[in-house]
């Protein structure tokens, strides 16, 4: 029974990684850049909820909506100010800028909120579910996290395949030059991608801090890195890949903590990443791209 409990917790953790990984994978797929500030947008979202719910006393749902709004605006602002001017620059310059934005967000949050940890009030108000006569207890947060993750995956896949702007995103990711010639506004498409990614970051922030209720200006950085790993794991640029990568990562992390060593769990997770990349350099569901000479 404890195995089942570890497994469910792992899937829940993996679902959060998967939602964060979506932000990385979409931006990479479409803009060909690694947005390392994504983890910190999550932190900003969590602080927005914290301020709305715990400081201003608004209901949780209003808090989440405010956070989605704040993060969307922030994502668009970052894209316009920091990344758009570098569209033609080398990918290394963009990467360094992204790291810069990440530190900027962390330090601004440090300035405003200070370094003290805050206990985050859960936005989920569902009681724990007890199965097998109380031997297996699943928290409301776990259920909501897994459900939200599946819902987001379905909604996003439908959006990309069924809407015009979604098709434009696909076109830009395949060939930016050709997409421009076909009359697609590349800048607008990339901005929409950032907006969606950042809105998802706000939701990830809500779920992350509801399950693991400690909030500091550094809250987003480690989950951000793990989610990036999950995105690479599943094949960066692929949406189902982000889901698969996130969940494998979460489950492996929790099971290795339980059965191998609580100290080595991260080492095991990252060794697995190296192994997978040795066998499949583009990740589990990554597309092989044949460069034409």
């Amino acid at each position, binding site marked *: 029974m*404890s195995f089942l409990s570890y497994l469910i*917790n792992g899937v829940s953790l993996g679902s959060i990684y998967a939602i964060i990984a979506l932000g990385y994978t979409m931006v990479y797929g479409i803009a060909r850049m690694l947005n390392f500030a994504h983890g910190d947008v999550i932190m900003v979202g969590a602080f927005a909820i914290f301020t709305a719910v715990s400081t201003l006393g608004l209901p949780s749902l209003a808090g989440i909506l405010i956070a989605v709004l704040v993060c969307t605006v922030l994502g668009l602002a970052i894209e316009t100010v920091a990344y758009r001017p570098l569209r033609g620059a080398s990918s290394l310059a963009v990467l360094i800028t992204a790291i810069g934005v990440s530190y900027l967000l962390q330090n601004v949050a440090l300035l405003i909120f200070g*370094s003290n*940890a*805050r*206990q985050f009030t859960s936005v989920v108000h569902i009681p724990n579910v007890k199965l097998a006569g109380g031997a297996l207890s699943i928290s409301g947060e776990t259920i909501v996290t897994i459900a939200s993750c599946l819902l987001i995956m379905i909604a996003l896949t439908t959006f990309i395949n069924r809407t015009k702007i979604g098709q434009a995103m696909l076109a830009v990711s395949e060939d930016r030059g050709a997409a421009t010639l076909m009359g697609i506004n590349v800048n607008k498409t990339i901005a929409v991608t950032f907006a969606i990614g950042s809105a998802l970051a706000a939701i990830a922030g809500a779920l992350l801090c509801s399950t693991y209720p*400690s909030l500091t200006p*550094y809250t987003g950085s480690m989950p951000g890195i793990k989610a990036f790993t999950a995105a690479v794991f599943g094949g960066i640029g692929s949406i189902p890949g982000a889901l698969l990568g996130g969940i494998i990562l979460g489950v492996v992390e929790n099971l290795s903590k339980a059965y191998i060593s*609580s100290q080595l*769990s991260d080492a095991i997770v990252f060794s697995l990443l190296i192994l997978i990349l040795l066998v499949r350099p583009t990740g589990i569901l990554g597309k092989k791209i044949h460069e034409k000479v």
Partner: protein
Amino acid sequence: MKKLISLGLAVAMAASLTACGGNGAKETTAAGNTTAAATDTTAAAAGDTTAAASAEGGVLKVGVIGPLTGAAAVYGTAVANGADLAVKEINAAGGIDGMMIELNAQDDEHDPQKSVNAYNTLKDWGAQMIVGSVTSDPCIAVSAETEVDNMFQITPSGSAVECVAPDNVFRVCFADPDQGTASAKYIGENKLATKIAIIYDSSTSYSSGIREAFVAEAGSQGLEIVADEAFTADTNTDFSVQLDKAKEAGAELVFLPIYYQEASVILKQASDKEFAPVFFGCDGMDGILAVENFDTSLAEGLMLLTPFSTTEDSSKAFTEAYVAAYGIDPNQFAADSYDAVYAIAAAAKQAGITADMNASDICDAMKPAMTEISIDGLTGSGMTWNAQGEPDKEPKAVKIVNGVYEMQ
């Protein structure tokens, strides 16, 4: 017109330069004056004599190193404030035999490299002694430097064993192993539990140091360690697996030699799991009640070994003065550094330190003097030091009852 403005600006600049030129002692004495004036009327006169004395007694320059910004800023600012308060009091009371103390606090962001940079900045400023560094790893880096320079150093809170390895370094807080041993003894002697689970941070020397000593002592106290679980700085948000394992193993007491930030999450997750053993922490647990938005009822019954509590009678005066000066409650780091400055003052008096001595001579005189003094500080009465730099004082256990510390 423009010329007139620039002339005015130049004059103003020259004036401000001369104002800066009037040395730092003036500032310190001025501060002394205000504190003294606040206490009673005769003190105003005492303040005047201080001004005269500062001219003959000179100024002892003491550098403070700690994380004033960054993740550990709570500790660094508390140490800077505690030292500042002690210095103001000492100067207002006439200094160390007429010698004033001047402080200069430098930020190290809890980073060993930046801590060494901060030390170098303080050397350039002319520091004759160092209070710091606040956190263990930066402190180890700085103590290696002060050993080379033969600079007297006292760390308020660097608790890793290696912090005081050189014989020019002393500390106010307990060493990590001492806390582990003391915790095991306390649990054993008071029969709090026999089945113990440990959850510790394997990525800090603080936590693993305490855990090691605890494990070593547990056997002789008749304690059985049923779960020994670790986490690292990168996995410090989810403890569900560790708690599940402790629960399954039937632990009656969970020993948490960790900082309060992680502990607050552990308490929350344990309550979600309806797992209610006794939780027992060390000095890093101090501050848990101040975590913003933390449901303090979760910490009910939590026990910790801490050298300082604001609710004790002996710390009331300090707590009031601290709150009046800095607007927040002092924590044990503030108390540690307050004691550190008083220890410096007592040892400097004992050794007959004068402001014109160089840092190396001061250090040679301070080393034996530190072992000869005994002070009644906030973190222990009758504190003494041995030549290795370790303090000798009694640990105090507190239990959280109705949201406040209750001495045990």
